[in-house]
């Protein structure tokens, strides 16, 4: 049987082709195309920077068909991960990682909310429908705090979900836990963007060709002209507020400082912008949406606009259907498969669809060559995982986790790493923080470094 999604993908090649061309326009090696700014490079002294990305797939997977055969270098992909075959040397499949804080504990139901909330934080979310939301700072934001100022954007947050579900979310948890994976602080999620065009314009300006660089410069000019005004207003306002309200205004001030910083950096070094543009209008197919966001993320890395990104394919509990691969059922309702073979079959199709999009992302990362001749992928660390293992059991151990990329030759890619016992997912994150230049003593519920993934 022909697979309908291929047809859809083919139809959208021309739209994405625009972006591919865009990649070609900036394939100059990193160091050739970007002058060093003292600030960006003082620490890294000529080295190609390491990038980190976290890709989230919802609702767990069909575990038996995901699981690889064999261990170490001698492994083969499970059926749903076959699309990753061309990248066998660039990925590590890790078995045995868990998010203990995703389990029910004393909090009862709400595994989908906890799956998303713990994913990058390793912390237990406070069960509340809105007041006093609290979980923990996320690994990407820890990295952004440490190294984010070396680039124009400390981090980039992406999601294919354009809106929140109406009404309540999962079992008494605020929707914020389910629709965000990046957390700037224990209390403040970082809302992701979903429109590829808007993200692109935010990074690289509006208009076409030369207009974009000019539009970025004009944007900076306008921002500068009102910063003094709003800073003075905020200061006045701050005086009249209760402590609880000041926290909200502080969020505003933090955002303002980030923009100020960017303006200062802009003065030293105008950003490099690609000379192509994104297709107008929203993507029509889900695969196209995923790939356009992936393209933008690659471009952001390629132009060193940011080194840190998170990308939710969908929020946990998503009930999206996948007509591209002939699955009309909702993903979430399917994930409660009750062991039924036809449901499992469909979940496998969805897993494979996701893996195809991931392979697309890896391919784009591999096409980009850096100054040392290695690829962008070789210089990156990409986690691709779900916060649940089996959607029917809602279990938060034995998570499906892939770590792609080489972190500049410091990761031992091309293996199935089967951990002897269970280890916290945050051990992997602690190791990644080390590698990206943001070492921490501990993170979330970590118990130590995960040396098994290192070269």
């Amino acid at each position, binding site marked *: 049987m022909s697979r309908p999604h291929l047809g859809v993908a083919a139809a959208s090649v021309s739209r994405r082709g625009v972006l591919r061309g865009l990649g070609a326009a900036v394939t100059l090696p990193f160091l050739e195309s970007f002058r060093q700014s003292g600030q960006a490079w003082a620490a890294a002294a000529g080295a190609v920077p390491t990038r980190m990305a976290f890709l989230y797939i919802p609702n767990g997977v069909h575990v038996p068909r995901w699981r690889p055969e064999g261990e170490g270098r001698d492994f083969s992909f499970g059926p749903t991960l076959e699309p990753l075959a061309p990248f066998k040397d660039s990925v590590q499949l890790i078995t045995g990682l868990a998010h203990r804080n995703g389990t029910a504990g004393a909090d*009862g139901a709400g*595994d989908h909310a906890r799956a998303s909330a713990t994913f990058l934080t390793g912390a237990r979310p406070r069960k509340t429908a809105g007041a006093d939301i609290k979980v923990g700072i996320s690994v990407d934001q820890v990295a952004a705090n440490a190294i984010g100022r070396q680039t124009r954007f400390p981090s980039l947050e992406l999601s294919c979900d354009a809106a929140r579900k109406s009404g309540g979310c999962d079992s008494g948890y605020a929707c914020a836990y389910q629709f965000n994976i990046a957390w700037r602080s224990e209390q403040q999620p970082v809302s992701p*963007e979903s429109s590829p065009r808007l993200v692109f314009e935010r990074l690289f300006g509006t208009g076409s060709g030369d207009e974009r660089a000019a539009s970025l410069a004009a*944007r900076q000019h306008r921002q500068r002209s009102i910063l003094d005004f709003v800073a003075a207003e905020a200061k*006045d306002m701050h005086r009249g507020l209760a*402590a609880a309200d000041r926290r909200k205004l502080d969020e505003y001030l933090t955002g303002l400082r980030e923009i100020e910083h960017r303006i200062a950096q802009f003065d030293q070094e105008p950003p490099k912008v690609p000379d192509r543009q994104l297709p107008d209008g929203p993507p029509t197919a889900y695969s196209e949406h995923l790939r356009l966001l992936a393209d933008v993320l690659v471009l952001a890395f390629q132009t060193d606009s940011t080194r840190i990104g998170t990308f939710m394919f969908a929020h946990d509990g998503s009930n999206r259907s996948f007509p591209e691969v002939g699955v009309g059922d909702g993903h979430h309702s399917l994930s409660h498969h009750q062991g039924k073979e036809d449901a499992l079959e469909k979940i496998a199709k969805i897993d494979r669809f996701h893996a195809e999009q991931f392979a697309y992302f890896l391919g784009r990362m591999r096409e980009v060559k850096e100054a040392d001749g290695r690829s962008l992928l070789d210089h990156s660390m990409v986690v691709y995982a779900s916060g649940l293992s089996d959607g029917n059991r809602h279990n938060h151990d034995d998570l499906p986790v892939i770590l792609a990329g080489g972190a500049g030759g410091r990761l031992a890619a091309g293996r199935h790493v089967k951990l002897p016992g269970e280890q916290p997912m945050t051990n992997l994150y602690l190791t990644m923080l080390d590698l990206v230049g943001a070492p921490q003593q501990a993170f979330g519920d970590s118990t130590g470094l995960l040396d098994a993934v290192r070269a």
Partner: protein
Amino acid sequence: MATFPGGFRRPFHWAVVVALALFPAAHGADEPPRKLLARFCGECHFDAADEGDVAIDKLLAATGPGRSVKPGAPEHAAWVNLWKNLRAETMPPADEPQPSAGERRRLLEFVSREVLGVDPNRPDPGHVVLRRLNRIEYSNTVRDLTGIDENLRDDLPADDTGYGFDTIGEVLSVSPLLMEKYLELAARVGDRVTADAAGRKGNDYPSNLRRLFPSGPQPEDPDARPEHLRRTLRRLAERAFRRPVDEATVKRLVDVSEAAMAEPGGSFEGGIAAAVTAVLASPRFLFRVEAEAAATTPSETAAPIDEFALASRLSYFLWSTMPDDDLFKLAAAGKLRAELPGQVERMLRDRRSDAFVRNFVGQWLQTRDVEALPFDVRRVLGVKEREQGERIFSDEVRRAMRQETEMLFGHVLREGLPATDLLVGRSTFLNEPLARFYGVPDVKGKDMRLVSLGEDVPRGGLLTHGSMLVVTSNPTRTSPVKRGLFILDNLLGTPAPPAPAGVPALDEAAATLPKEATMRQLMELHRRDALCASCHARMDPLGLALERYNAVGQWRADEAAGTLDTSGRLITGERFADVRELSAVIAGPRRRDFHRCLAEKLLTYALGRGLEYFDGPAVDSILEKVEQDGRLDAFVHGVVASVPFQMRGGAAAASPATPASQPATKGKP
């Protein structure tokens, strides 16, 4: 003292036995709350059992008549948590015996009134955290402030929601990304003002821009210009910040304007446009800053908000935008409070209240989702081609479904009809595409209009609306569980406890059913397991009553459907044969539950915070207002008149003098 390994729930019930021995009484309407606590919580939280570090018997011992637990006391937080868990039905856990709705209500009353000392005569309005505009409010406010009507909403990232709404201050945060967007959009609007103003003929500004130039163009006389500029900017700032502004702000805006005018090609209009950009980026525009009517002393727990704050609360509640000139003028004259009922009526008659209908109903009844949810139309409709299915369940039909529910709500609201008409009214809003989809004859044309439904038409009331039936379905089939939950959550206000972790799979039991098992047979599997039965007995019968409607809300006309058993019983005992009788039960014997539920949803939406243990009197005050005739508009009046809408935490909660390091506390001496 006995200890138990591993913190597991203990296998026997001696605590309950002891508790019951201490309080020997039959279970009944007069069972004292303390005994209810022992009965439902005792196993895990009484007599040395302190699962989760909660020992309710010890908490109870520390309280008694006349000895309420004060904020700041060590037990206070524990009691507040207990109240929250009881209210959200997260306790007792779903796999334990559940109190009835009445018992739960008595427990909640007991905790709030007797333990926590909530006193209707000494109301605590609570504190709504400094709330930023959500993206809909932002877009509307920019439109009404500047006359520039671009849909800015879609340029902003989605707002987080809490308690089911996107108006909740706590979860509306400002990320650096959002900050960037605000500056970008502010600049874009400023550019549009410049461009539009440049195209004016003579001294005549385009009508949409006149509100930005209330004093007209720049005067010829250079000496008159500074005052003219100041007047123009002050008016702009007052409207943008929705309250009077001080001299420092006006001075800053003058600086911004003059700098822009001095640039090459600068103009008076360009200067105003620069000021527009500046005010749109200001925190005073983006946040809703409120003040009290008069300075309060630290001993006051609550104070009325000033009339400007009241005008904003009203306009964002009912219009999702800034106050208009009438509200401003009344607030400035100090007459708004005195004329509130009339103003609310005026605001509801104004078409801007469509925003309230759309945003409140859109989230309460989830009509926002009806147009985008994915469906496998081939399977649901039993057609060969997807295109064919999508012609039947078309975008046009979906849009009409959303409008049907919104328009019915608007109609009941504006015509002074009882809220229960939403459930049992015999008319609805249809156009030809939706009428054809429903199988209702004689509706022609694309305009939605009020249609009286004949007795033989199986429609009428929210439970038969396509919107409700669609948003509670899965992409391939109906979900009686979701439909039942929707009714419990949003109409009866008695949400079922979340399913316990580690629900046993139904696969083995399901395997015993014939392949073509009916939905009812499938649902009955829930009853085989006592663990599942206690909650599913509450939701499944409600959902099964709606089984005559398929996943996209069409009436099942086929032969098999004719024998569908849609009868059932509410957990409170009322029996019904079908959806019409179920609607009548909710609108009749359970009317008070429905009213309470609606009042709580409205109050949450209007206040921008979840309800707390001290909000009971406010909800009761709304219910008193609607007791007579149950009119939907009376709910709105009741919310507006309520203490938390009219007041805010007193001096100690919001005093500028509160050091930043010290957490704000409710001002109890």
